[in-house]
């Protein structure tokens, strides 16, 4: 499987999001760079709304993620509940 990744700005908004992503994707690997956190995963990475909401204690709209997103790779599918990055092969 090829690697998919998501890179976010390092700030207070993204700290719990990164934590949530790592909870939901145990095999994901964090790569910290200046002002940026890149999360790599093998073939598939899921961002779940519920996990984030549990960590931040308020309602969260996954579209808010766009404010802090720097780059990504893979195909993307988004619903109300989760964002999935994936390669098909």
């Amino acid at each position, binding site marked *: 499987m*090829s*690697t*998919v990744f998501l890179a976010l*700005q390092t700030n207070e908004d993204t700290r719990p999001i990164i934590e949530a992503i790592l909870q939901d994707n145990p095999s994901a690997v964090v790569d910290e*760079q*200046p*002002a*940026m956190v890149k999360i790599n995963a093998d073939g598939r990475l899921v961002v779940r709304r519920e996990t984030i909401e549990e960590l931040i204690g308020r309602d969260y*709209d996954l*579209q*808010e993620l*766009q*404010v*802090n*997103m*720097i*780059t*990504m*790779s*893979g*195909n*993307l599918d*988004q*619903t*109300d509940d989760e964002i999935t990055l994936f*390669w*098909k*092969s």
Partner: protein
Amino acid sequence: MDMQVAKKKLGLKERYAVMTRGLDWTPSYQKMEDIYPCIAYEGIKIHDWDKWEDPFRLTMDAYWKYQAEKERKLYAIIDAFNQNNGHLNVTDARYINTVKLFISGISPLEYVAHRGFAHAGRAFPGPGPRVACLMQSLDEIRHAQTQVHSISNYNKYYNGMHDFHHMHDRVWFLSVPKSFFDDAITAGPFEFMVSIGFSFEYVLTNLLFVPFVSGAAYNGDMGTMTFGFSAQSDEARHMTLGLEVIKFILEQDPANVPIVQRWIDKWTWRGYRVLTLVAMMMDYMLPKRTMSWKEAWEVYFEENGGALFKDLARYGITMPKCAEQIALEKDHLSHQAWSTFYNYAAAANFHTWMPDEDEMAWLSSKYPESFDKQYRPRYEFWREQAAKGNRFYNKTLPMLCQTCQIPLVFTEPGDPTKICYREVDYKAEKYHFCSDHCKEIFEHEPEKYVQAWLPVHQIYQGNCFPEGTDPTAEGFDPLAAVLKYYNFENGRDNLDFDISEDKKNFDEWRGQATKNI
């Protein structure tokens, strides 16, 4: 209240469908081909526009909300950066030359992208792609403007940026990025989407932005880092659009596959040639290096692009064939480019210099196969000459590639000692190329590329002097006249960094900030 019927709550996908797809209708008072005249001539066959998958489903209200949040943050930081003379916090004044390159070479392209996506959005009959393209058109004017606004403060204190619009349309090396985007926007709407939406945004944008932005971060330029990251947050949306475009076109009809493959081949190469400027920026212009060009290419193209093309293999799409040549060039590209700009320092709107000993050591370690053998001796020679007061400024105009418009300075694939020349005879004229790939691009569409406004040819034809210049006058200095046409301030905007006003001012200003004088 008893009339209140429990309404089904629509999910994101259904909601977005009624918010966009439902707006469209089939016209009957005018013919489809008159309303959408650009859609057939490229030979792409679309049977069902509704098969388009919307990647991010942003309605306008959400768009305004989130984008306004980004803008608020961005301008707060720009203001703070300016108020605190943040420019004096950069590593050293050499860094500022990357900003000059960016504003005169890249920012104007963001503007062309804005107009190009408006054109593509207007051209496509399907509401899915239209909305995505128009949203990107709106984002692109954002990028053009936030860049101008961020860099505006640098222009107040440093040279070379003061007339960047004028320069972009005229200066010899800026015809490289300009002709790239002119090529894309003058192509049909499908090719535009593959060129910019896919090849540039998806395949190559990480190579432009991540090194540039993290370069800014490494070198203490918080203003540029902020606009860069802020722009990148839109880029994630653009990348998914680029990938969706490709998948959509390929799934619509098998006859589309070879057309798209040719475009991917062409635009990966065209884009790569433009990135030559980024390569030399990474290896030479950032006082504090992030990663080498070669490393960036390996991570963002070979590894990441490899995953992408593996994914697209199910449609019959293969890795662009130019990737092989690029792999051969990656040990040489930035060095050959920097040597060229060092030569032509009199005719560029930024300064060049020779790397110091530490930097040479870094280059040796990053390029063990090539640097010490091919480039270090050359640099040492130039450095010696400069020390003797013979700083070399090349005044002979170079031959340009008809397609990418870069001077013919690149070497044969696999032989770094021999300059690569290719030529084609077309309608009794001879055309020159830097590579087989540029030559092939020309041969496929000669009628397009013969139109190219080649700066060197234009200078020789007398088209690059200020109005009213008399080239037959006694003592006429063609170079001085060309620099006037560029609106360069000779001696301030150009020449070697060591003798520049930028260096002098920066040292003095920083001295004021750190010492009691």
